[in-house]
C-alpha cells in the first residue's frame, strides 16, 4: 500500500471497526442486556480503539514514515512557537551553509566540472621540458618540432597546436580588433567538436596561400548577422583574404583561459611567413588526444624519446629541450588555482564548523529549558530513542530551513564574487548553482543538523526524568555535564575562530607587503593602449614612421606630459624570453642563456619613469639605420657583469632566429629593475632593444598625463584615426589597471578570508555571550545568595568575566597550536612574510581576547545588577 492511500485506508478501517462494534452491541442487546450497558460491554470486549488503530497502522508497514512526518510537524510547531530562537539559528545556519555553498559552486565550476569535450579525460596538455631551468619548466613548441611530434608519436590519436594573438577584421572600411587563435588543421578534431555550420579545417589549410578561418558563434552573430550561407565566403583580416570554413557551435571555447577567441585561423599565414620552418621559434601550445588504453607515463616516454632525438639532431635550438611534459589538460588548466580555492574551501568549512558549535550551544540551552517537557514524555513511556529521534528531527528540520535560506544566500554571494572580482581564473565565470551544488547543499544541511543536534539530543536522552521533573524547567545549580559540553563548544569556537583570524591576518599582511612593492616604474597617470599596425601595409621603415608621427601628435595633445611606445608592458600578458650571447665569452649556441626581452622607443623609460642607473637612454640616433645598441637592467648587470662595467660591452641577441639580422649590440645604458610579471614576482634580469631596430605588430603606446589619464583615450583614438582609420586601437587601460590586476588574486583571497575571519570573530563572541548569559540566568539564585551574604557587585562582575576569560584562553591556546600547524598550507600564497609570523599570531590572539572580554562583560554586568531580593524570591 502506498502512503498516499492512507486516508482512504483509514476510513475503511474506521468503518470496519464501527460495523463490528455495532454488531457486538446488538448481540449484547439481543441477549437482554440494557441498551446503555450493552454499549459499554461491547467497548470492553473490544478493547482500546486508539491502540488498535495505531497497531493496525503499524501492520500497514508505513509507521516509520508516519512517525517521521509526525515528528517533523511537531518540530515545525516547536520552531514556530519560539521565533526568536528559530530566526537566530536559521540566520546563523544560512550564513554558514550559504558561504560554504558559494565557495563550493566556485570549486565545482573551476576544479570539478569536466572539460566540455567528449572523452575529455584523454585530452593532454603537452610541452617540452627546458632542462636549463630547475624543476618542471615547460617550453613551447616550434612548428618543426610540432610536425615531428605529430608524425613520429605512437601514443596519440592526434596532437594539435594553438597560439593566441589578435587579428584586425576589416568590414566595409571599418576595422575591429578580435582575439584570434592560430591553430593546426586537426585542432577541432582533436578536441572532438565539429563546426555547426560549414566544414572542419583540412590538411591543405596548413599550406601557404590557403588562409582559412573558423568563426566563433558570437562573432558570427555580432559581425555577420548569423548569416547561414557564410561558409565558403571570403573575409578580410590583417590585409589578407581568408576563406570562412564554418562556424563553431555556441559555447565552444578553447583555450579556456584568457579572452575567448573570436576566430581560429589556420597556420597558412605562418607558413607563408616561413615561421613553420623555424626551429627555435618556440611559441606553440599543444594539446593531444591519447589513444585508448594509453597511459600518461607511456605518452610522456614516447614524446620524450622524440624530443631527445631532436635535441641531438638540432643542438643549436633543441639542446635544452630533450624531454617532454604530459599532463591531463583539466589538471594543467586548474593547477595554479587549485591550492587557492582549496584554502578558501577549508576556511569556509571552518566557518561552518563554528556555526555548528554556535547553534549547538543555542540548542543546548533550549533543550535544557525544555527539560520538563522531555522528562514528562519519558515518564509517560517515550523511549530514549524516541526522544533522541525527536530532537534530531528538530535539529535537521532547523538546518534544512537554514539550508534553504543558505542556498538563496549562496546564490547571491556566488554572483557577487564572480562579478565583483575580475579574476583571470579559467571557468570561474561559468559558476552556477547546478545539481551538484544543490546536492552538496542538501548533504551539508543534513550533516550540519546531525552534527549540532547530536550533542544536545544525547545529553537530553541521558537525563533522569524524575530529577528533571522535580527541578522544573529551570534547574537550580544546572547540570554539570551539560555545562561541560557547552563550555567545550565555546572553547572549540574560540580555537577555530583564532585559526581563521590568524590565516586571514597572514594574508592581509602579505597583501599589504605586495602593495608596498615598488614596481620599478610609476604607474600613476599613465594611459596605455595597443596599436595594431599591419605589417602587410607598413614595411619596417613605414611602421617606425607611423609611430613617430603618432607620438608627435599625441604628445601635442592638451594634458599630455610625454608619450612613447614599447613592448611588452610590465604586468601585461605579453612576455618573451630570448637567448643571447656576450662577446668574448664563447658558448655553444644551444647552451646560450635567455632573459626577458623589451623593446623601447625613445622616451619610453622617461614616460614610464624607469630610472637610469648608468650610461644613457635610447635617443633618436638609435633608429632603423643607427648603430645597434642595447640597454640592460640592474638585475641583468648584476647577474652577467658582476664587478665589471657593462657599458661598452657587446651582446648578440637571437631575436627572430634567421629572419632578422642578428647584429652585435653595444650596451649603452643600465636602467632600474621593473616587476615584469606582477608585484609579487621575483625581479628578473631584462634587456631592451631600440624599438626601430626590432619592431612588433602590436606595441603598446604609453602616455603620461598631467591629470586623469582615462580622459586621453578619445584624443588617442582620433590621432590614430587621422593617420590611418583602419588601424585599430585596443586594450586601452591605465598602468594602474595592470598593477591592480596583477594583485587581483591575492586581493580576492584576502577579501574572502577576511570576511570569513570577521564572521568567525562575531560567531565566537556570540557563542561566549550566549553561554555566559545562560549561566547568569541559571545561577541567579546562587548569585542572589552570594550577594545576600555580602559579595560585592564588582566580585560578581569579575567572577563572570573571569569565567569567560578562562574559556577564551583555553580556546586561544588550542587555536594557536592548530594555527601553527595549519597556516603552513598558506605558505605558498604568502609574500614577504613567514606562515609562522609571530606578530600576526599575537595580534590576532589579542584581538580575539579583547572581543571575548567585551562579549563577557555584558552578561557579567547584567549579573552584577541583579537584585538579590528578587532573585531569591523568584526561586
Amino acid at each position, binding site marked *: *500500500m502506498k502512503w498516499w492511500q492512507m486516508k482512504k485506508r483509514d476510513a*475503511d*478501517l474506521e*468503518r*470496519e*471497526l464501527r*460495523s*463490528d462494534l455495532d*454488531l*457486538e452491541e*446488538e448481540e449484547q442487546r439481543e441477549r437482554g442486556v440494557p441498551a446503555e450497558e450493552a454499549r459499554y460491554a461491547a467497548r470492553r*470486549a*473490544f*478493547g*482500546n*480503539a486508539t*491502540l*488498535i488503530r495505531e*497497531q*493496525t497502522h*503499524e*501492520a*500497514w*508497514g508505513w509507521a516509520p514514515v508516519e512517525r517521521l512526518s509526525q515528528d517533523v510537524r511537531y518540530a515545525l510547531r516547536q520552531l514556530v512557537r519560539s521565533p526568536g530562537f528559530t530566526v537566530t539559528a536559521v540566520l546563523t545556519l544560512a550564513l554558514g551553509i550559504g558561504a560554504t555553498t558559494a565557495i563550493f559552486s566556485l570549486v565545482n565550476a573551476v576544479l570539478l566540472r569536466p572539460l566540455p569535450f567528449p572523452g575529455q579525460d584523454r585530452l593532454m596538455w603537452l610541452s617540452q621540458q627546458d632542462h636549463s631551468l630547475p624543476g618542471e619548466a615547460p617550453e613551447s613548441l616550434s612548428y618543426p618540432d610540432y610536425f615531428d611530434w605529430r608524425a613520429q608519436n605512437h601514443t596519440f590519436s592526434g596532437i594539435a597546436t594553438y597560439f593566441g594573438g589578435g587579428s584586425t577584421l576589416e568590414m566595409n572600411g571599418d576595422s575591429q580588433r578580435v582575439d584570434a587563435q592560430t591553430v593546426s588543421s586537426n585542432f577541432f578534431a582533436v578536441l572532438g567538436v565539429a563546426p555547426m555550420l560549414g566544414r572542419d579545417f583540412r590538411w591543405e589549410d596548413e599550406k601557404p596561400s590557403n588562409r582559412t578561418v573558423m568563426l566563433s558563434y558570437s562573432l558570427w552573430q555580432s559581425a555577420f548577422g548569423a548569416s547561414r550561407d557564410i561558409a565558403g565566403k571570403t573575409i578580410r583580416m590583417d590585409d589578407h583574404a581568408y576563406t570562412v570554413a564554418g562556424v563553431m557551435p555556441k559555447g565552444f571555447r578553447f583555450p579556456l583561459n584568457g579572452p575567448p577567441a573570436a576566430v581560429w585561423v589556420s597556420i597558412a599565414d605562418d607558413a607563408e611567413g616561413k615561421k613553420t620552418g623555424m626551429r627555435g621559434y618556440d611559441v606553440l601550445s599543444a594539446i593531444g588526444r591519447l589513444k585508448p588504453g594509453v597511459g600518461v607515463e607511456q605518452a610522456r616516454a614516447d614524446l620524450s624519446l622524440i624530443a631527445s632525438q631532436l635535441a641531438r639532431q638540432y643542438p643549436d635550438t633543441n639542446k635544452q629541450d630533450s624531454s617532454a611534459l604530459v599532463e591531463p589538460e583539466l589538471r594543467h588548466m586548474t593547477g595554479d588555482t587549485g591550492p587557492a580555492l582549496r584554502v578558501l574551501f577549508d576556511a569556509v568549512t571552518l566557518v561552518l564548523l563554528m556555526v555548528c558549535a554556535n547553534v549547538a550551544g543555542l540548542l543546548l540551552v533550549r533543550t535544557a529549558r525544555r527539560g520538563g517537557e522531555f522528562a514528562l514524555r*519519558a*515518564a509517560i*513511556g517515550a*523511549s*530514549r530513542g524516541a526522544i533522541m529521534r525527536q530532537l534530531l528531527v528538530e535539529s535537521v528540520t532547523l538546518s534544512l530551513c537554514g539550508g534553504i535560506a543558505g542556498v538563496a544566500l549562496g546564490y547571491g554571494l556566488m554572483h557577487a564574487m564572480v562579478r565583483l572580482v575580475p579574476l583571470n581564473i579559467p571557468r570561474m565565470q561559468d559558476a552556477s548553482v547546478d545539481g551538484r551544488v544543490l546536492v552538496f547543499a542538501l548533504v551539508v544541511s543534513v550533516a550540519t543538523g546531525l552534527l549540532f543536534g547530536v550533542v544536545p539530543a544525547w545529553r537530553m536522552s541521558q537525563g533522569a*526524568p524524575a530529577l528533571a521533573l522535580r527541578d522544573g524547567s529551570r534547574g537550580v545549580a544546572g547540570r554539570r555535564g551539560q555545562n561541560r559540553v557547552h563550555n567545550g563548544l565555546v572553547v572549540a569556537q574560540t580555537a577555530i575562530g583564532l585559526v581563521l583570524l590568524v590565516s586571514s591576518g597572514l594574508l592581509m599582511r602579505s597583501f599589504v607587503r605586495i602593495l608596498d612593492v615598488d614596481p620599478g616604474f610609476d604607474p600613476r597617470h599613465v594611459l596605455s593602449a595597443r596599436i595594431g599596425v599591419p605589417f602587410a601595409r607598413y614595411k619596417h621603415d613605414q611602421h617606425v614612421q607611423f609611430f613617430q608621427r603618432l607620438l608627435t601628435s599625441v604628445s601635442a595633445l592638451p594634458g599630455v606630459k610625454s608619450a612613447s611606445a614599447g613592448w611588452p608592458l610590465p604586468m601585461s600578458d605579453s612576455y618573451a624570453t630570448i637567448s643571447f650571447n656576450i662577446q668574448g665569452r664563447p658558448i655553444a649556441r644551444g647552451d646560450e642563456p635567455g632573459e626577458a626581452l623589451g623593446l623601447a622607443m625613445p622616451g619610453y623609460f622617461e614616460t614610464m619613469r624607469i630610472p637610469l642607473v648608468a650610461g644613457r637612454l635610447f635617443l633618436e640616433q638609435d633608429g632603423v639605420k643607427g648603430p645597434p645598441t642595447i640597454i640592460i637592467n640592474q638585475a641583468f648587470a648584476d647577474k652577467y657583469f658582476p664587478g665589471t662595467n657593462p657599458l661598452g660591452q657587446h651582446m648578440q641577441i637571437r631575436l627572430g632566429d634567421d629572419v632578422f639580422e642578428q647584429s652585435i649590440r653595444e650596451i649603452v645604458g643600465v636602467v632600474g629593475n621593473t616587476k615584469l610579471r606582477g608585484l609579487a614576482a621575483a625581479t628578473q634580469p631584462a634587456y631592451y632593444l631600440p624599438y626601430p631596430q626590432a619592431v612588433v605588430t602590436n606595441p603598446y603606446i604609453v602616455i603620461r598625463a598631467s591629470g586623469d589619464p582615462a580622459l586621453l583615450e578619445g584624443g588617442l583614438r582620433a590621432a590614430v584615426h587621422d593617420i590611418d582609420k583602419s588601424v585599430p586601437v585596443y586594450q586601452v587601460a591605465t598602468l594602474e589597471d595592470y598593477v591592480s590586476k596583477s594583485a587581483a588574486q591575492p586581493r580576492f583571497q584576502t577579501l574572502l578570508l577576511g570576511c570569513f575571519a570577521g564572521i568567525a570573530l562575531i560567531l565566537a563572541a556570540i557563542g561566549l555571550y550566549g553561554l555566559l548569559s545562560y549561566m547568569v540566568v541559571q545561577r541567579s539564585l546562587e548569585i542572589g545568595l552570594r550577594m545576600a551574604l555580602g559579595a560585592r557587585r564588582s566580585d560578581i562582575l569579575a567572577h563572570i568575566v573571569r569565567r569567560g576569560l578562562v574559556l577564551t584562553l583555553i580556546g586561544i591556546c588550542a587555536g594557536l597550536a592548530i594555527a601553527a600547524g595549519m597556516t603552513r598550507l598558506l605558505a605558498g600564497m604568502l609574500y614577504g612574510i613567514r606562515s609562522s609570523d609571530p606578530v600576526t599570531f599575537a595580534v590576532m590572539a589579542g584581538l580575539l581576547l579583547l572581543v571575548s572580554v567585551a562579549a563577557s562583560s555584558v552578561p557579567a554586568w547584567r549579573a552584577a545588577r541583579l537584585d538579590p531580593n528578587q532573585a531569591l524570591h523568584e526561586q
Partner: protein
Amino acid sequence: MSSMAKQTQQRTAVLQGTLDMLILRTLLYGPAHGHQIGKHIQRTTNEFLQMQHGSLYPALHRLERRGWVVSKWETAPDRNREFKYYRLTDKGRKQLIVEESQWKRMAEAVARVMWPTAPEEN
C-alpha cells in the same frame, strides 16, 4: 520505563504468531468478518483465550498485507448490513500448513523439556 515497554512488546510478539495461525485456521471453514472470527476462537477454546476482539484487526491487516487473506465488503445474510469479510488465499492455505507444523514441533520440544520422563519414541 523503557524496559517495561520492551516486555510488553515481547509478549505480543509471541501471541502474534499464534494469533495469525488461529485466524488462518478459522478462515479454513469459509469467509468471515472480524467479529465472527473473534467469537469463533473464543467459543472453540471454551473462553480460555481471553482476548479482546480489537487485537484481531492489526493481525488481520498484517495477514492481508502478506497476501494470506483477501478482504471484501459484503452484506451479511442475517443482518442486512455490510461487513468486511476475510477470505483465505492459496498462499494463506500453504502458510497455515507451515505454521501448523512449526507449532507442532515447538509443542513437542516444549513437552520434551517439561516432561522428560515420557518414553522416547525410538
